[in-house]
């Protein structure tokens, strides 16, 4: 099967420092793909390049075989490439339902509609409510986002992305800062997503990664080190060295 | 909503008051600029008005004078002035509108006077065309052409052949520039350069450098009374134009008593034309300046105070003539041709234009008893505004 998301020699330099150099990554349709590596390996930079948050210094990003390198972030979202953020990026003063409806409206192309109130766009609101239901957020639908516990907020972070009906979902450390019990639940939720959503995941918790991912790419110092199935990665000597090195440093 | 309650109370109180007072007071609505950059204008005019009332009592033709004062700061916003005038007419029921420091204010209010049929006494704004904007306008200040023309004539007669003009870029400035060019050219002089400068924040150095490089006999300057005059004189001195043999000739706005102390000694010897000087020698003026010094020891009387004083004088005299009626048509009719002796000298109201006719003096800055004064040494009597001919 053709890769749904692909990069060719993607490079990003900040001054003389290459945060991401010559990365050629391929993510298959329907994959559960994880991106791991020690701190500063360039994982988040890569996500930022994929989504258009940063412009690459060189190289290309292809979505479903078409280049999207020159497209803006929102245009890539429209084509099904959606992300979450490592640090929550939410709408603090909106209720949960309002936030998610906002995202749904945007996907339905209602973002420019200015006549009917949001509440009258029944389809959008219903869809948002449904999504909240699947994420078990329905009971806090009318709470303001900023009043919620961190674990719930982390779910909203994902809900906002799911509302865009992603074909490729980039999750940047979804469980960061979430207590262990809740993070397992969170991953179960992610795991229940249908197979037509391709997932590329950055995660530090190796237990979660090895339970979830079917394929793993390891990055070090801005470049790809290796890519394989989890079992192979677990036994890869170079990967062990990298992580051992980090452990010693820390 | 405490505010609304207060407003309502005030409204009721006003109504009750209106009903109780049988002997109708004479309400004069004053639109003055009392804050912002032109705050000094409103202050001076108000001083003049109050001095007149203090001197002559606050009852005119049997009616007690009530002043209703509105601040139309910044003074250049016609919409504000107009609204205040409208309120004075509609809400405060004033009989007469007076004040108007700057041209936009007078222009904006003129239609109100016409529509409401209220006499409108212009006590400062000096663009020539103002009195043509309503038949009920009478002016007791001056017009720029009126002040400028005698100076141009004097200059041409006194060996000044080539002049560079600098005026502030607004109505009065255009009036002054136009009149000076016209009169000076007719008298055989030559204008070697002209520039219009912004009304706000002028920095004169570059303009004065240009003047210096052009080497005229004199530079003619008009700027609105206040900071611009100070800045000009500083620049003039610093650039050494006097040493280069260039004289300053100006309308008296440059050297008005309110600011002449800020200019300091560099003003000495400057020639100007104007209608009022604190140093004018007459019994009326002596009384006026003495009363002023007593009432407002921190300030010095200037032409605006005189215009306010004369404006009240006009109102008083007209009402004596009309038997206390402030009806706009009667007022304007009675004001036409009225003559009296003002602190500035003899003045009258032109029956044709309702504008002021007055003596224009040529003066020179001299130190008199420790104070810088504009000492008059030549004059042109009963001079009409040439801007309307």
């Amino acid at each position, binding site marked *: 099967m053709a890769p749904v998301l692909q990069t060719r020699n993607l490079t990003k330099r900040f001054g003389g420092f290459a945060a991401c150099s010559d990365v050629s990554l391929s993510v298959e349709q329907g994959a559960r793909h994880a991106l791991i590596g020690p701190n500063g390996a360039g994982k988040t930079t890569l996500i930022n390049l994929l*989504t258009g*948050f940063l412009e690459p210094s060189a190289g290309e990003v292809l979505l479903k075989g078409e280049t999207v390198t020159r497209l803006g*972030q*929102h*245009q890539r*979202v429209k084509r099904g490439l959606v992300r979450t*953020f490592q640090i929550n*990026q*939410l709408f603090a*003063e*909106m209720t949960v*339902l*309002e*936030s998610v409806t*906002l*995202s749904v*409206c945007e*996907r339905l192309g209602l*973002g*420019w*509609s*200015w*006549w*009917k*109130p*949001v*509440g*009258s766009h029944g389809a*959008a*609101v*219903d869809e948002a*409510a449904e999504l909240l*239901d699947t994420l078990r957020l329905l009971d806090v*639908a*009318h709470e303001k986002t900023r009043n919620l516990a961190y674990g719930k907020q982390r779910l909203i972070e994902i809900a*906002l992305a799911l509302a*865009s009906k992603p074909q490729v979902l980039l999750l940047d450390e979804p469980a960061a800062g979430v207590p262990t019990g809740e993070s397992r639940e969170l991953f179960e939720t992610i795991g229940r997503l249908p197979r037509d959503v391709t997932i590329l995941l950055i995660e530090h918790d190796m237990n979660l990664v090895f339970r979830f991912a079917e394929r793993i790419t390891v990055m070090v110092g801005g470049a790809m080190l290796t890519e394989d199935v989890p079992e192979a990665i677990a036994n890869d000597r170079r990967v062990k060295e990298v992580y051992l090195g980090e452990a010693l440093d820390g | 909503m405490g505010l609304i309650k*207060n407003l*309502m109370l005030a*409204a009721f109180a006003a109504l009750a008051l209106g009903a109780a007072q049988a002997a109708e007071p004479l309400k004069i609505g004053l639109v003055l600029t*009392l804050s912002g950059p032109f705050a000094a204008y409103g202050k001076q005019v108000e001083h003049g008005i109050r001095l007149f009332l203090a001197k002559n009592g606050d009852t005119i033709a049997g009616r007690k004078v009530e002043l209703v004062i*509105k*601040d139309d700061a910044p003074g*250049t*916003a*016609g*919409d504000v002035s*107009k609204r205040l005038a*409208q*309120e004075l007419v*509609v*809400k405060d029921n004033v009989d007469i509108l007076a004040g108007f420091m700057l*041209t*936009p204010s007078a222009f*904006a209010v003129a239609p109100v006077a016409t*529509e*409401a049929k209220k006499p409108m006494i212009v006590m400062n704004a000096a663009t020539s065309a103002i009195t043509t904007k309503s038949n009920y306008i009478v002016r007791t200040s001056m017009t720029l052409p009126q002040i400028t023309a005698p100076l141009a004539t004097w200059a041409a007669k006194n060996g000044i052949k080539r002049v560079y003009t600098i005026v502030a*870029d*607004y*109505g009065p400035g255009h009036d002054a520039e136009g009149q000076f060019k016209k009169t000076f050219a007719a008298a055989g002089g030559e204008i070697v350069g002209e520039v219009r400068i912004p009304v706000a924040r002028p920095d004169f150095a570059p303009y004065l450098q240009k003047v210096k490089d052009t080497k005229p006999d004199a530079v003619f300057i008009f700027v609105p009374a206040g900071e611009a005059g100070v800045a000009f004189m500083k620049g003039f001195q610093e650039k050494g134009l006097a040493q280069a043999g260039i004289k300053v000739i100006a309308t008296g706005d440059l050297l008005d008593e309110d600011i002449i102390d800020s200019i300091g000694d560099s003003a000495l010897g400057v020639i100007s034309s104007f209608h009022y000087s604190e140093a004018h020698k007459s019994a009326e003026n002596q009384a006026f300046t003495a009363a002023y010094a007593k009432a407002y020891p921190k300030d010095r009387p200037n032409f605006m105070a005189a215009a306010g004083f004369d404006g009240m004088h006009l109102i008083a005299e007209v009402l004596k003539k009309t038997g206390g009626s402030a009806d706009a048509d009667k007022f304007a009719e009675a004001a036409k041709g009225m003559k009296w002796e003002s602190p500035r000298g003899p003045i009258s109201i032109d029956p044709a234009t309702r504008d002021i006719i007055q003596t224009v003096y040529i003066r020179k800055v001299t130190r008199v008893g420790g104070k810088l004064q504009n000492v008059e040494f030549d004059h042109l009597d009963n001079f009409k505004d040439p801007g309307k001919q």
Partner: protein
Amino acid sequence: MAKISIDLSPLQKASAWKPAEVVFWLLPVIAFFLFPKSLALLSQIAITALFALSLDLILGYAGIISLGHAAFFGLGAYAAGLLAKYGWGDPLLGLAGAAVLATAAGFISSFLVLRGSDLTRLMVTLGVSMMLYEAANKATDFTGGVDGLQGVEMKPLLGEFTFDLYGKTAYWYSLIVLFLMFWLARRLVQSPFGHSLRGIKQNVKRMPAIGTPVHGRLVAVYTIGAGYAGVAGALLTQTTQFVSLDVMSFSRSAELLLILVLGGTGSLYGALIGTAVFMAAQHYLSGINPQYWQFWLGAALVLIVLFARDGIMGFLNRLPALAAKKRGD
């Protein structure tokens, strides 16, 4: 589709007219009968309220800081004034003309303004408005410069109502235009478009990630805000039949900012209430002591920023909670 058991009414009700709003809009009608002699002031309150509303759209909802909003107000004012001066004195035509011009100017300048940080925006809006001010100042033949544009003669409204000295026509005209524009704005901010603006203000980083063309939305709202300001400017010209250069001044922009903050940004009623309170206070205080009312205005502003950043609307919104607390004690 599985039926979801959730009460959606809070979201749907948000857009319904509340009793308090109806009462609010009855106030100006009552004011007409209560203060028949203050209609000139009341009309200018209505006009300034519309102007404040326009800034609220761009600052309160979309978070674009502007120190030069008077530029559009001024453009509208001059457009209406010049149209009337040269024979097209019909008020509604003037209003339309001003709206078109200001909207176009807003659209063009939005591309300059929407670059850079808050500080850059502050400076660019200021710079653009100062340029327009200077241009109007210099084009004396066209605008009358500092002396103001005279000879603005308005035809009767709808061929029927002349602009009278008492300001009755002016008041109803300003009030109705304000209400219609408010109603439009109200729809706008409650629509998905309006929500996306709130989203941009609350988290500009997230918006592109949910598929929002942020720049386009900002251009749109800036353009609309400019159009609103233009209409307000035109109303001022038509009801006073005069345009002074001051309509474009920096102080007008700054004062507007104060009004909006006083009322509370990001709620349409904040703009209206802020204007009413500000102008009434200005009128009242400057009546008592014309020279120094500015001092209290400044003091009020400092206190608001330090202690009541959400303005009068914020205070009103907190009232129920405060009352409940009191009852609880």
